């Protein structure tokens, strides 16, 4: 389901004018603090009215100032995980979770209460009131509440910011499953490059109320990285050859070489997408020696961009896909790297987060 | 109730006694609504289910008569009362009421004369008339503290807040914390009378019977005990 946004909105002195389109799946909104991400999400949810413009989700027009269409939030069937929780203080955790569910006609319900409660590890909290929850617990309940309202689209505003890595590691695959199994379009705001690189199909880069760039995650991240400050390397698409065995590694085939990745959980032959952080890419000229690094990809240097010292971004063509390596200028000099040169890109196996295509 | 009487609040004690005696005698139930005569009159005007109106002054009875809401034939001016000057019980003041008597001087610079509201409360109206007739109103007026009914005025004197007050003789009789300094001569004020009448809707035999009882000698003692004088004449 596509999301089509073309809106203008003024809040005090802050002006939003954004236009982009995504092809469904997970759309990451990425941008500095105060850039307008939450404002955009509120516009999609219907909590703010655009001064001018149109938002459509698939064939459903949510708002169009030209035709005067404005669906109220309750009519949009969009789940929203707020940046600040917003749990109902007068209801128990259980009632908070069930709130949207009660309001959903049986036929439109999906998701299993118990499964979601266990995934979020909030079963011991069910009888409590929000006031007695920790920051991360509140956020987990908020995620559960939005999911259990059986939305047709999900807005998540920094949903995992307050969570520990272990919890994040459990929830992230679940978000992916929502996209894949429920075919739920998700708008995901995050400051974490890793989260975005892993989850997003489309990235919308926002700054000062405008869209700087939008498009597939690989493309947008490759640009971002060249400008510095971020650590996204690229996204590669590979074919699963054999699923993980006792050693826990699945084998994949990519035009630039074989790849090893932790368990994939998909049938052999599937296309799998892998996100790689630029700082996890090491460049070797000639034979790399006996290293613990598992993945060796044949790559051609397409460009070398200076970042803030001591860093340099090496743009690579890896079997036709872009990938950025971030190394020191010192290394570039010593290895004598230059555009056009063929090198080996080394990527630690454990650094690969598997993504479904 | 078999009969509903709208009666001025100052009649409460006397009328309550009469009602219980009547009830004991006849088994009939009489309900009395006590309020300010003005309020009662306006309620009757608005259709109140009163069978009998027992007013504390002629004005409000006349008001209803003019609107043809009472049965003029049944109207009786039943009770009379006196107007007295009272002081707190421990007061040593002694004054004789006569034209130009030194009430203002007796009050002193700061003392108040407690009265019912002189524009509206009957006791206040009578008091003002009397003081005017005696030629002391102008001197006393700045000292007057007006209460919204006679009981309020009496309380000011009883609690020692005001050195003097003008109230009905009936009230002064019953309040042990005040003493009567002097009684206003009857010719200094319009007659203090309590007219009673059937209303236009009070046509039941029970209503007539109770009114008759009030006029009868059986009821006499109930009123006299409270210090009322029985006039009992029609008109």
């Amino acid at each position, binding site marked *: 389901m596509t999301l089509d946004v073309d809106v203008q909105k003024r809040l005090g002195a802050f002006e939003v004018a954004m236009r982009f389109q995504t092809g469904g799946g997970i759309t990451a909104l990425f941008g500095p603090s105060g850039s307008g991400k939450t404002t955009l999400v509120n516009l999609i*949810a*219907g*909590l703010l009215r655009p001064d001018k413009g149109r938002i459509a989700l698939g064939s459903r027009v949510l708002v169009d100032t030209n035709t005067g269409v404005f669906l*109220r*939030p*309750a009519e*949009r*069937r*969009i*789940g*929203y995980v*707020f940046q600040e929780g*917003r749990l*109902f*203080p*007068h209801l128990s955790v259980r009632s908070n979770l069930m*709130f*949207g569910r009660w*309001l*959903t006609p049986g036929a439109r319900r999906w998701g299993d209460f118990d499964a979601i409660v266990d995934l979020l590890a909030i079963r011991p909290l069910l009888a*409590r*009131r929000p*006031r*007695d929850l920790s920051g991360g617990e509140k956020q987990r309940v908020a995620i559960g*509440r*939005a999911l259990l*309202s059986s939305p047709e689209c999900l807005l998540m505003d920094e949903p995992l910011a307050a969570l520990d890595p272990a919890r994040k590691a459990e929830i992230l695959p679940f978000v992916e499953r929502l996209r894949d199994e429920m075919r739920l379009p998700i708008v995901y705001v995050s400051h974490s490059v890793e989260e975005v690189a892993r989850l997003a199909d489309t990235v919308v880069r926002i700054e000062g109320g405008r869209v700087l760039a939008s498009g597939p995650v690989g493309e947008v991240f490759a640009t971002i990285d060249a400008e510095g400050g971020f650590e996204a390397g690229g996204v590669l698409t590979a074919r699963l050859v054999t699923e993980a065995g006792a050693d826990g590694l699945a084998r994949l085939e990519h035009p630039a070489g074989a790849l090893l990745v932790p368990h994939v959980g998909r049938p052999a032959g599937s296309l799998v997408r892998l996100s790689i952080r630029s700082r996890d890419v090491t460049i070797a000229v000639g034979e790399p020696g006996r290293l613990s690094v598992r993945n060796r990809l044949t790559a051609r240097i397409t460009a070398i961009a200076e970042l803030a010292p001591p860093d340099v971004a090496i743009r690579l063509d890896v079997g036709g896909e872009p990938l950025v390596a971030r190394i020191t200028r010192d290394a570039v000099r010593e290895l004598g790297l230059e555009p056009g040169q063929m090198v080996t890109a080394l990527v630690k196996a454990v650094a690969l987060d598997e993504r479904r295509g | *109730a078999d009969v*509903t009487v*709208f009666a001025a*609040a*100052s009649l*409460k*004690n006397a009328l*309550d006694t009469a009602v219980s005696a009547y009830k004991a005698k006849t088994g009939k139930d009489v*309900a*009395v*609504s*006590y*309020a300010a005569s003005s*309020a*009662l009159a*306006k*309620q009757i005007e*608005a*259709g*109140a*289910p*009163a069978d009998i109106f027992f007013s504390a002054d002629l004005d409000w009875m006349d008001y209803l008569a003019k609107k043809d809401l009472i049965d003029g034939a049944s109207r009786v001016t039943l009770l009379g009362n006196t107007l007295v000057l009272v002081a707190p019980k421990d007061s040593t003041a002694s004054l004789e009421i006569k034209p130009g008597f030194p009430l203002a001087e007796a009050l002193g610079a700061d003392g108040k004369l407690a009265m019912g509201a002189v524009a509206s409360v009957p006791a206040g109206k009578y008091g003002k008339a009397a003081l005017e007739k005696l030629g002391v109103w102008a001197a006393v007026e700045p000292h007057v503290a007006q209460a919204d*009914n006679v*009981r309020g005025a009496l309380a000011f004197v009883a609690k020692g807040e005001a050195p003097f007050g003008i109230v009905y003789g*009936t*009230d002064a*009789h*019953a*309040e042990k914390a005040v003493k009567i300094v002097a009684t206003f001569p009857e010719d200094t004020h319009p007659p203090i009378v309590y007219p009673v009448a059937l209303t236009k809707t009070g046509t039941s035999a029970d209503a007539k019977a109770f009114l008759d009882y009030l006029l009868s000698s059986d009821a006499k003692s109930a009123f006299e005990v409270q210090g009322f004088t029985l006039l009992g004449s029609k008109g």
Partner: protein
Amino acid sequence: MEQLFTPEEWTAIDLSLKVATVATLASLPVGIAMAMLLARGRFPGRSLLAGIVSLPLVLPPVVTGYLLLLAFGRKGPIGAFLDQTFGLVFAFRWTGAALASAIMGFPLMVRAIGLSIEAIDRRLEDAAATLGAGRIVVFLSVTLPLAIPGILAGAVLAFARSLGEFGATITFVSNIPGETQTIPSAIYALIQSPDGETGALRLTLVSIVIAIGAMLLAEWLAARFRAGERT
């Protein structure tokens, strides 16, 4: 106990309780709706409406009672209409005493509820809307429960006011024992009589006990509600 009060006083106590309870409960829905309208509505004349709602507070009770008498009396336009249409009579009935009480307590109720409604974080209502709650559901499931402190306070104020209300009631429905003589009217009548003070005092104490009972009940409910919010 029976001997503590005269039958007439018992009747007054009974009636006062009935009048205060009915007045409070019956005006509560209207009070909530009015508070909601005034707190949330943005329409021309909003301030004027707020002013009108407050009138019974501003006017001497006797005036309010008199206006009620003119409007709701048997011959008054509204009174006549209600009588003929629904057979609903206020004039000189206990229902009239309840109406007078309800009207006198109304501004207090509306203010208290309005304060609570204004203190609600509207982002919670937004959250409910994203979960599929339409306006009515949002109101019932979020706004109303979060306004409970104000609703309870408003109810207590109205109930207490009703127990103390006298001027409007006696002016509107008179002071008929067993029908419209509430505790305050009875106290008034007692005060009028030379030796009525002890009777008045006894009835006053009854009022106080009832009011404190109502307040404790409301506090207990509020505490339960707060505890609910916490545990």
